[in-house]
C-alpha cells in the first residue's frame, strides 16, 4: 500500500468537496500559503483530536512541534474547558480562529473531513471510538493501552486491519534509541537465549476514600464521559483519576503494560503471540472508591518456555523497566536513557548487516506522519499494542479470579474456565453498542 495513502486521502477530500457534501470553512488557512521554507499546505496532513485532556494536549503539541507536518482543524472533548484550551492551541498554531469544536465524537466524525485523528481517551471509550475512526478510514494515533478488555482489543485490531489504515500506538518508548538498542541486542542473542523477563511497572498510590456525590460541573458532560461504562453518580473523580477505578482502567498495571511489556515483547520476539499460562496475585486497597490493585505480581509462561514476570517496581531488583535474562547475561532498559547489562561489553556489541535490525524511528509523532505519507506501517502497530496490553489484562484476570489462567494465544480464548472467560469482556451500557469483529 505504499504511496497509495496520500493519493487516497487527496481523492477523498477532493471528492467530498466537489460533491458539496460538507459546507465547511476552507481548511487550509491563507496565512500558511507561500511562507518560505515550509511544506506546501496541500501536503500537510489534516488532523483532528478526540480527547484533549492532559495526554491529548501533550500529543497535539508533539504533532505541532513537527512544524508544518500536520494541520489540526477540529477538536472534540466532553469537557468544554478542555475544548477551549485545545482550540486556543490550534488557533494559535494556525494563526486564525477557525478550529472547530465538538462535544460529541459522532458529530465530529460525521462532519469533519480529515486525514488522521489523534485520540487520547479513558480506556473504556477506546472500543467504540477507535473502531469508528478506523471505519471512517482515518489514520489513527491512539493512546495506549489500546483497550480495557480483550474483546474490545480484538474488535479494534480487526477494524484497523479491515480498513487498512495507518495506526500508531502512543507507546513512544519504541522511538527512543536506548529502548530500541536494548531490544535489538536481545533479539540478536547478545544476552544469549532468553529464558526469563522481568517487567517493572509503577506501584499504586494513595487512596482518597469515597468522596461525596456532588453536582456535575457545567463544563462536563458526565453522561457522555461515562458512555458505555455503568452509570455512577459524580463524585468529582473524572479526568486523570479514572485510572484508579476498575470500571475504566486496570490501574498502573494496564497503563504501563503498553510501554514496558511492549518493549519486552519487541526484544524477545513475542510481539505476535501471547502467554499460555498466567498466574499471580494482586494487592487491593481495603477502602475507598479506588479499587485497582496497588501491587501486582504475576508470571506469564509462553509456549516457547520463556517466563515473564510482571510486577510493581518495588518488588523487583531492577525496579521499573524491562530486564531480559538469557544464558549469557541480562540486559535492562528503562526511561531516563537507562540501558545496562550484566557485562558492559554486551552494550558495545555491533549488530552486523546480516542480523536483525529493528524498525528505527527517532520521533514517534514524525514516524506517524511519515507513515501516513508513505503508506507504510508505523513503528507501533495495532497488533503489537494489543499483544502488550493482553499481558496486563490476562494478569488482571488471574488476580481477580485467584486462579491460574490458561490462554490460547492463537484462538485468543481462555481455556476451560467459563468464569474467567466472562472477564474478557465488559458489557456496554445502553444505548452504546459494543463493536464486533
Amino acid at each position, binding site marked *: 500500500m505504499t504511496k497509495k495513502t496520500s493519493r487516497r486521502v487527496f481523492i477523498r477530500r477532493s471528492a467530498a468537496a466537489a460533491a458539496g457534501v460538507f459546507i465547511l470553512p476552507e481548511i487550509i488557512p491563507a496565512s500558511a500559503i507561500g511562507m518560505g521554507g515550509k511544506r506546501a499546505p496541500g501536503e500537510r496532513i489534516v488532523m483532528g483530536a478526540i480527547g484533549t485532556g492532559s495526554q491529548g494536549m501533550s500529543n497535539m503539541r508533539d504533532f505541532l512541534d513537527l512544524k508544518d507536518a500536520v494541520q489540526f482543524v477540529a477538536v472534540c472533548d466532553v469537557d468544554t474547558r478542555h475544548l477551549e484550551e485545545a482550540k486556543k492551541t490550534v488557533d494559535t498554531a494556525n494563526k486564525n480562529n477557525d478550529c472547530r469544536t465538538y462535544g460529541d465524537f459522532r458529530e465530529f466524525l460525521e462532519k469533519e473531513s480529515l486525514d488522521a485523528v489523534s485520540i487520547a481517551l479513558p480506556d473504556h471509550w477506546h472500543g467504540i471510538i477507535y473502531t469508528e475512526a478506523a471505519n471512517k478510514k482515518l489514520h489513527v494515533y491512539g493512546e495506549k493501552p489500546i483497550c480495557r478488555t480483550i474483546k474490545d482489543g480484538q474488535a479494534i485490531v480487526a477494524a484497523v486491519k479491515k480498513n487498512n489504515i495507518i495506526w500508531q500506538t502512543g507507546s513512544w518508548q519504541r522511538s527512543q534509541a536506548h529502548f530500541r538498542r536494548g531490544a535489538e541486542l536481545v533479539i540478536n542473542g547478545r544476552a544469549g537465549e532468553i529464558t526469563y523477563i522481568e517487567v517493572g511497572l509503577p506501584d*499504586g498510590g494513595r487512596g482518597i476514600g469515597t468522596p461525596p456525590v456532588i453536582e456535575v460541573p457545567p463544563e462536563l458532560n458526565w453522561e457522555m464521559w461515562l458512555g458505555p461504562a455503568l452509570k455512577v453518580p459524580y463524585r468529582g473523580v473524572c479526568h486523570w483519576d479514572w485510572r484508579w477505578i476498575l470500571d475504566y482502567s486496570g490501574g498502573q498495571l494496564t497503563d504501563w503494560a503498553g510501554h514496558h511489556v511492549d518493549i519486552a515483547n519487541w526484544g524477545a520476539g513475542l510481539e505476535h503471540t501471547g502467554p499460555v499460562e498466567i498466574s499471580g496475585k494482586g494487592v487491593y486497597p481495603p477502602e475507598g472508591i479506588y479499587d485497582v490493585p496497588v501491587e501486582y505480581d504475576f508470571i506469564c509462561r509462553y509456549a516457547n518456555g520463556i517466563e515473564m514476570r510482571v510486577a510493581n517496581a518495588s518488588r523487583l531488583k531492577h525496579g521499573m523497566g524491562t530486564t531480559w535474562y538469557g544464558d549469557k547475561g541480562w540486559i535492562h532498559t528503562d526511561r531516563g536513557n537507562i540501558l545496562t547489562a550484566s557485562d558492559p561489553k554486551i552494550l558495545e556489541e555491533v549488530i552486523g548487516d546480516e542480523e536483525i535490525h529493528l524498525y528505527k524511528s527517532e520521533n514517534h509523532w514524525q514516524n506517524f506522519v511519515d507513515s501516513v505519507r508513505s503508506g507504510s506501517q508505523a513503528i507501533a502497530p495495532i497488533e503489537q499494542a494489543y499483544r502488550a496490553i493482553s499481558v496486563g489484562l490476562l494478569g488482571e484476570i488471574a488476580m481477580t479470579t485467584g486462579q491460574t489462567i490458561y490462554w490460547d494465544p492463537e484462538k485468543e480464548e481462555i481455556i476451560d474456565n467459563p468464569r474467567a472467560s466472562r472477564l474478557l469482556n*465488559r458489557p456496554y451500557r445502553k444505548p452504546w453498542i459494543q463493536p464486533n469483529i
Partner: protein
Amino acid sequence: MYRKFYILLLASLLVAFLPSCKKSPVSKTLIITGQDDSHNWKASSSQLKLILDGTDLFSSEIMVTPEKGGDMQTFTPDFSKYDLIVLDYCGEDWPDETKTGFEDYVRNGGGVVIFHSSSIAFPDWKEYNEMTGLGGWNGRNEKDGPYVYYTWNKLVIDTTQGIAGSHGEQHEFEIRTRISDHPVTKDLPVRWMHGSDELYQQLRGPAKNMQVLATAFADTAFGGTGRHEPVLIAVNYYKGRIFHTTLGHAEDENSPAMHCTGFIVTLQRGAEWAATGNVTQKVPADFPTAAGAVQRTDLKEMTLAKAFENIGSYDIEKSTKYFTFLRDQIRKAEGDEKILVKLEKKMVDVLKDPNATNEAKKLILRELSWMGSNYCMPVIKSLESDPELADDVEFALNRLQK
C-alpha cells in the same frame, strides 16, 4: 452386640480423625510488663493479649513485674511453662537467676516477641541484646554494635560513633517489606501505610543472626534520620526465635499504632512464627496498602457473617470494607466451586433483601456478573423492572449468559 461394636468403631474412628481436624495447637503465652514510665504498659499489655488471643492460636496471661524500686528478687517466672514470652517491659534489671532462666528458655527453642519499649530495656544484658538484634537509648552507643538501616534499597551496617535510639514526632508512615520470603512477611504488600506511631531510629546492636523484615522511612520533616529504619526484625538465637517489632506506641487503649491492621497482623504472624516456626494465618482483606492506613476499632478480623450482616445497608461513603472483604473472599476461593457457590447464595440474599440499598446491589451484581452460576439468574432477572438497577442487571445478565 453388633451395636456395641459399631459404637466402639465409630468412637475409635472419631478419635483417629480428631487430630486431623484440630486447629494448630494453642501456644501458651506469657506477656511480661510493668514499671515503664514513658509507656502506658497497662493499656498496651491488655491490647497485646486481645490481639494474640483473638487468633485462637494463643492463650495468654499478663504478668506484671514488681513496681519500680520494689523487690525484683521476687520476680522469678517459670518460662519453661510457656511456648511464647512477649516482652512489653522496660524497667529495672531482672535477678540473675531469672535472666539465666530466660536465656535457657530461648536457647532451648522458646519463642519471644520484643514489643516497642522492650527495644529499650536491659542495655547491659549481653544475651538480651543478642536476642533483640538492635536496641536504643539507656546509654547505648558504638560499643553496643553498629547502626543498621536501609538507604533507598541497600542494607547498611554503619559503625559510625554515636548515640543509639531516638524518634521524631508521631505520624502515619509507610512501611516497606524488605524480605518477602520469610514466614512472617510472606504475601504481605511490599508497601503499606501504618497508623500514627513513634518511629524508632538510630537503633544499634550486635545484629547477629538477624533479618530486617521491614523498614519505615524516617522522614526528616517529622524529625527523622532520612533513613529507612528497621521496624520488624527476626532473630535466631540458638534454637530460639525472636520477633522484634519496634511499632505500637500506646498512650491509651485507642492508640492508632496498636489499632493499625498492619501492626496487629504482623504481631500475630510474628508471634506465631516465634512460637512455632511457621505461620498458618492468611493475610486478611483489610491489611493496609500503599493506598492508606487501616484501623481495626475492635482489634478483630472481619468475618463473613459480619460482612454479610452489614453489606446490604452499607454506606459506601463511610466505608467500603464489607465489599472489599467480599471481593477478597472471592479471590481467595481460587475458583473453588463450593466456596464460590456459598458466597453466591449469600450475595443473592442481599439482592433479595428489600432493605438492602441499590448501591450495595449494584456492587453485588458486578461481582455476580462473572462469578455467578445459574442459581443467581432468576433473582437478577427479577430486578430488571427496577429502573435504578436496570443497567446493572443487563450488565450482569449479558456476561452470565455468555
